[in-house]
């Protein structure tokens, strides 16, 4: 069969990372002459189940599914498969009901790289604080894990404080960092688990006027964040291949509909991005 109409169920368009993927999918599908119907769950998995139902009602040929909620729900995948529609899971996969293929960044490894880099830059010592994402969510868990693995190799770096954001928002990053710096003015490393959090943290550091260099790490490689990185607002991030993942998702969909085989897992590396290599990503997001 030939794919004509794709359904795209996005977790939350208010997050730049998902919005990037959405834009990439839409642009690339247009190139390929496919129709895309996009729905936005606004972060709520129940809404997403409803939306997937609606997509199936519209006779889509394949579903690109970016699960909403803390962790991936199985029902959308099951429902789609029951209707004979191939599912391409992006970013998160459900343990009980995996998609026909799973496209994601290797979060643990990438987070490990980021933390390793920032630790090294800071000279392998100092006080570190972590601004976590929403507690208990897959990316929060994975990134904490990766970073923890890296920091295990730096005994002189002390994690003096960590706080959790509720919605990965930039203003939360600002407030949480500000509060942590209150109690720990000697902090020299800040790890933000997302670029938005890192940008907020950078602003808080700037406001605090600490009088010493503070190294700040982010994650995701949001378009806007990359520009900030270039300007030296913060120091390192891991650029996820949003454009690439979007294109890959569409290609996988075409293949799956045509009955071709696709790898069950297509993990992408997030490229460690610093001031030195950021220009190319601003030019063209991977």
């Amino acid at each position, binding site marked *: 069969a030939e794919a004509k109409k794709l359904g795209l169920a996005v977790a939350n368009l208010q997050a730049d990372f998902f919005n990037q993927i959405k834009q990439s999918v839409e642009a690339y599908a247009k190139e390929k002459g496919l129709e895309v119907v996009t729905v936005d769950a606004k972060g709520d998995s129940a809404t997403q189940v409803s939306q997937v139902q609606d997509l199936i009602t519209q006779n889509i040929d394949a579903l690109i599914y970016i699960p909403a*909620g*803390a962790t991936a729900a199985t029902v959308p995948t099951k429902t789609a498969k029951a209707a004979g529609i191939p599912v391409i899971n992006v970013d998160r996969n459900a343990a009980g009901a995996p998609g026909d293929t799973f496209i994601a960044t290797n979060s643990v490894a990438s987070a490990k790289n980021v933390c390793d880099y920032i630790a090294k830059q800071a000279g392998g010592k100092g006080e570190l604080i972590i601004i976590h994402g929403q*507690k208990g969510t897959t990316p929060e868990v994975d990134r904490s894990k990766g970073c923890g693995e890296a920091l295990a190799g730096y005994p002189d770096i002390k994690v003096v404080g960590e706080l959790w954001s509720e919605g990965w928002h930039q203003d939360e990053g600002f407030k949480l960092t500000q509060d942590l710096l209150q109690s720990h003015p000697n902090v020299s490393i800040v790890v933000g688990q997302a670029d938005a959090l890192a940008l907020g943290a950078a602003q808080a550091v700037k406001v605090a006027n600490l009088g010493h260099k503070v190294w700040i790490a982010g994650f995701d490689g949001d378009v806007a964040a990359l520009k900030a990185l270039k300007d030296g607002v913060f120091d390192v991030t891991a650029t996820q291949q949003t454009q690439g993942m979007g294109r890959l998702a569409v290609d996988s969909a075409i293949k799956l509909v045509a009955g071709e085989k696709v790898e069950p897992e297509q993990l992408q590396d997030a490229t460690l991005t610093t001031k030195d290599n950021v220009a190319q990503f601003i030019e063209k997001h991977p």
Partner: protein
Amino acid sequence: MSSKPGSADLSVSAGEPRAGGLKPLFAALFAGAKGPLIGLILLCLVLSVSTDTFLTVRNILNVLDQITVLGIMAIGMTLVILIGGIDLSVGSILALGAMVLGYVVNPDYLGLPIPAGIAAALLVGGLCGLVSGLLVTVAKLPPFIATLAMMSVARGLANIITDGSQIVGFPDWFTNLSIVRHFGFISVTVGVMIVLGVIFAIFLNYRATGRNLYAIGGSPEVARLSGIPVNRLTNWVYAVCGVLAALAGVVLAARLDSVQPSSGFGYELDTIAAVVIGGASLSGGVGSIGGTAIGVLIIGVLRNGLNLLGVSPFIQQIVIGVVIALAVAADTWRRRAK
């Protein structure tokens, strides 16, 4: 608008039901929601014409499935708003109820049978509601503050149970409750919502206690002077609203085959909106289950329809806002035209 004494008034309007006779069921059910009802019908007409999928049995069943959670919560919210209260905690109680269910039945935790889990969930929901009620009646907090506090506390509790992680996996028969369509068309969860709606509609219209809720909403002072146990009923209403929110959490668990502490976030506004779109007044004393059903359907159909039309998500937000305003404004125009 009192009908002229002695003259035969043949026009029966929903707003001002007909004198003396049997209050027509229809009028009683949709009291104050005729405008939104027109809005809903127009909406359905437009969608039937502009898509070829909206008016299919499968899609209509989908819409019913999709509104179950909102619908069950909105029943409880109708009671609360009727007595002049508001409950911001329903979304959090939903999450807490779902997490309690998961904790009790999942083999990694307590591993008890599902009915025990459901009972525990409803009990916890009822307790949360009762606490809100007591905060209102005993500590004399404004309902907004009492339930805002409960919203925060219940969410915290929901998160603490598993330190923020979800619990996945229920027996098949449980998830089938929301999937298998009996008699060819109705799932158990949808059935539960409909039965609850009917029960509460009857309760509000035909039971003395139900009418007393209207009196409390109209004026707690008058109700008290008339010998109605205002505080006791208020506590009950919040407790029932809590139980129904927890039940919505159970339904959601069946629907998602998993429970997570973040679910139901922001649902309070949706639920209140459905009730108010359905003609209820936030100052109390006015509202009906029928109206709420219309409110719930307007929200459900609107979201479904815009997805079917493939309207892009950002445009959807604008359209939803405009349609909600229009649906409720229809009531003003209808009254004015009279």
